[in-house]
């Protein structure tokens, strides 16, 4: 065990969660929430786009000079030679609330009418050029980092390492927790008798939700599955009791204990979820039957249902993880991107609409994360791993119809390009996560526990949430 972690655990055991990322350990500061639990409900929904979304084609400049730079960098129109640029005329206009002082305008990928509509209605925002950073970084600082020691996230442009950066915001420290997991660690004492863990995944185990202390709960895309062979009386009930006794027994290896604890939680939470979720609404926007939903929309329907039955489960704060994959478009960008982004847009729009059916759109913020942005340059019919990119934030609490951060001029070898059209983020994932965590209820004193590098940035809240 590394020393920092041991320190964290020792302090945690002593009652005050000391926290350390190779820096001065802090403590969790008492959160002001009126003493006993939150009186309101808030949920964040992380939509992870696995593979590295080519987001320079998701939100694209439409003003002449900026579009020309983009189109040149991408080698001309999609489908012509090795070109990757979305044709200008096909882009769906985004109407900025505050026009760009230099006259830049932007459009959405033609498959994303749903998100365009939310944006123009003030329910969605664009955060431009966000990615992992430890401190603000210029191109010359990047180029000389090896000699100056300017801190950069390790293993830039690698899938799993950059996913880990988004999940954990770890910088160069070695950590065992994700930022949502640490939100749970900080808020745990204020949640009252929540019947489920604060973190719920609809899409498998994720580092994002692993706490130093708190453990997430993983259910299926369509909800929790019940145990066959168990029942509420007689031999089937006894079978369940015996099963739980076995899961509760002591075992000699960490592996048996780890497995047994999953079995134990599975029985416990399946009851709670299944007992509550049957009371959830059949949403018009995400119906139970009659329409074939994509796997992503199915996950979001389950999230909407759980939000609908939040009081039955005594939940006041929840973080949901949903995902969709296939974004590693080294090949076939022209053929694949419309389907990938179209699904994202339609699923987000349906989810937002479902929330309006229960009046909860103001309490729920959906945001995207992805491994990395991709190269502006082409490898023939696709793009490669890069760094900064564009993310979306959606919900009634979003100060929408705005672009946050700084959308770079997309030129090869320009001031933001470290080579091949790999753009240095203008805002960090820490700032992005920190903004969401503050809205969720993390106070400023605790913010560095969630986003450890945030102190290195002047602006700790990017302002896209109320």
């Amino acid at each position, binding site marked *: 065990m590394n020393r920092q*972690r041991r320190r964290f655990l020792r302090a945690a055991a002593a009652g005050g969660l000391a926290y350390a990322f190779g820096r001065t350990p802090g403590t969790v500061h008492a959160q002001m929430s009126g003493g006993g639990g939150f009186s309101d409900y808030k949920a964040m929904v992380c939509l992870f786009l696995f593979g590295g979304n080519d987001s320079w084609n998701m939100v694209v400049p439409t003003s002449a000079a900026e579009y020309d730079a983009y189109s040149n960098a991408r080698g001309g129109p999609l489908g012509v030679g090795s070109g990757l640029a979305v044709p200008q005329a096909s882009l769906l206009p985004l109407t900025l609330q505050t026009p760009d002082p230099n006259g830049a305008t932007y459009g959405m990928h033609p498959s994303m009418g749903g998100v365009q509509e939310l944006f123009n209605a003030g329910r969605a925002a664009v955060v431009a050029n966000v990615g992992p950073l430890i401190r603000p970084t210029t191109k010359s600082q990047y180029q000389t980092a090896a000699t100056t020691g300017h801190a950069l996230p390790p293993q830039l442009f690698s899938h799993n390492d950059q996913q880990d950066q988004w999940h954990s915001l770890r910088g160069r420290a070695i950590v065992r927790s994700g930022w949502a997991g640490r939100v749970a660690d900080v808020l745990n004492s204020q949640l009252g008798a929540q019947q489920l863990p604060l973190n719920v995944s609809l899409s498998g185990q994720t580092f994002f939700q692993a706490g130093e202390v708190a453990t997430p709960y993983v259910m299926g895309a369509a909800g*929790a*599955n019940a145990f066959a062979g168990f029942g509420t009386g007689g031999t089937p009930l006894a079978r369940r009791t015996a*099963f739980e006794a076995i899961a509760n027994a002591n*075992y000699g290896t960490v*592996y048996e204990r780890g497995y047994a604890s999953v*079995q134990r939680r599975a029985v416990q939470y399946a009851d709670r979820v299944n007992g509550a979720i049957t009371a959830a609404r059949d949403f018009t926007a995400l119906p139970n039957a009659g329409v074939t939903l994509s796997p992503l929309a199915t996950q979001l329907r389950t999230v909407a249902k759980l939000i609908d039955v939040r009081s039955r489960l005594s939940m006041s704060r929840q973080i949901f993880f949903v995902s969709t*994959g296939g974004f590693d478009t080294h090949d076939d960008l022209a053929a694949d991107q419309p389907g990938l982004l179209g699904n994202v847009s339609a699923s987000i729009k349906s989810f937002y609409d479902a929330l309006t059916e229960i009046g909860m759109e103001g309490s729920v913020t959906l945001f995207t994360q992805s491994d990395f942005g991709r190269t502006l340059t082409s*490898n023939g019919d696709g793009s490669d791993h890069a760094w900064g990119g564009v993310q979306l934030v959606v919900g009634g609490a979003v100060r929408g119809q705005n672009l946050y951060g700084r959308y770079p001029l997309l030129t090869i070898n320009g001031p933001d390009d470290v080579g091949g059209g790999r753009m240095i983020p203008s805002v960090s994932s820490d700032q992005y996560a920190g903004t969401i965590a503050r809205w969720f209820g993390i106070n400023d004193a605790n913010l560095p526990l969630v986003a450890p590098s945030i102190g290195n940035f002047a602006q700790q809240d990017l302002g896209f949430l109320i």
Partner: protein
Amino acid sequence: MNHSTILGSRWRLILAGATLAVLAACGGGGGDTGVVPPPPPPPPPPVTKAEAFRFLNQATFGATEAEATRLIALGDSTNAYSRWIDAEVAKPAGTLLPQVEAAFATLSTQPNFNLQQLNAPRVEKWFENTLRGSDQLRQRVAFALSEILVVSQVGALQNLPFATADFYDMLARGAFGNYRQLLEDVTLHPAMGVYLSMLGNQRAVAGTNLRPDENYARETMQLFSIGLVELNVDGTVRRDTQNQPIPTYDQNIIEGFARVFTGWKWACPSTNPNCTFANTRAQNTPVANYNQIRPMQLYPDQHETGTKLVLNYSGVTLPNATIPAGQTGAQDLAAALDNIFNHPNVGPFIAKQLIQKLVTSNPSPAYVQRVAERFNNDGSGRRGNLEAVVRAVLLDADARSSPTGNAAATAGKVKESLLRLTQFWRAYDGRAASGRYGAQPVNFPGGVSSIFGQGPGQSPSVFNFFSPSYAPPGEIANGSFVAPELQLATEYLNTQVTNFFWTQAINRTTAQTGLAADTMFIDTREEQALVADSEALINKVAEKLLGGAAQMSATLKSEAKAQIDRTAAGTAGNNNTRVADAIYFVVTSPEFALQR
């Protein structure tokens, strides 16, 4: 030899008094009186059933009582294991491709045929090979390799079923070969070419934004050979003076390898022998010499001819770690693969992953080092001999001796969920009336991955079903241990798997009639014969699944036994429930999830 100095006088006295008859029986070699020969060393103990189960769960798709008996009969504990391995290494590889080709012949004549339908026969054949095949060690190593050198039917390969099957067969054939050769075979296999987009990778074109694809260049180093950071030979991470890990490569080196891997595409179709880079295509019909199962072909006009920066390390042979300009694509490839293969990381990187897949999630650095050193030199000066590496993994003292003290809590690993299934079916002679194995959808509605979280050739990405560094929150993460397979043991998937086993135990056995022809059923006749005696019944199940009744915890045994007895023996239905409860509680137990 003067025995008395070896034994010491006290021992001589005791021996003289106590073993006279034995000594007399020795026949008095040499005729010297007064010197007592030493006792023969005690013969090495035989392999116990529990030890045989442990070994076979490391080396096969699941221990069975029959195979344990066979192993035990091969000799004592110093030679039975190596003799067993000797025989395994000599066995030819069971394959997947012929079944896929045969399925094509049958299915392609039907209306609405599409190539994706041919993934299912590959999965069925995989179950048949792992449940029935005799080349168990080869298949188990191939499966481990398939989780390191990953391709998947999920994604770009979905319509290339022949290439996907042939890739796995290539791993099985190469499981005891040389890693350098395997790396080359993998690099040039069209399945990998498509999966990581080296197939069709073009040279840069001056004056345009076109440059080589970096996908294969990056992943072959990160995942298939050296990893991201420099390692010591024992697998621990080297650190610089600021205590930071030292990256093995940077973006410039990735771009160098990306340039190496240009110019390769589908071999010319047998129907178009004078094809070009632009017009070569996959052959989707298994005609003679079709290109889905042939290595990719070099198209020199699309190969980058300039210099290429490659890996630099102590002992690197290329001057300036640079491949010179003007070589052919084949020469560049050979130089690049040699450069990767001889990096000092490869031994510990591959050794540790094979140990983790076969034996334990948390090997000691000394164990990793012993195996890595066999990778570096098999004893006759060869590097990368996988047969020697596999022997080193399985015959190591850490794999064979029973761990004690603190190490006992982290010895072994969690079984992959798919391997829990194969072990269960092997132990219970799982089969279907149709002769097919694991056919969809009757056995796996939604596919095997939707229940077990994994299926052969069905990884969600090149990063496999689980990460070798996954550590769940709690004592495993707190202790800086890992438990990779627990990444799949989510509440959701564990429930899916647990329910699968319940259905199997209660509804799909030799006690049922009217099962669908493809339904996998288990043979419970021995359990049925013991059904009236709950103690004997639960012990029988533990003998088959755990290698002995003593392997059950007291809680498992007492809870399972009590549950069995809640249903009175007698009627067929009740007997079925009693047998089902016995099997269900053992197969879903933490003891069974653990590979010791």
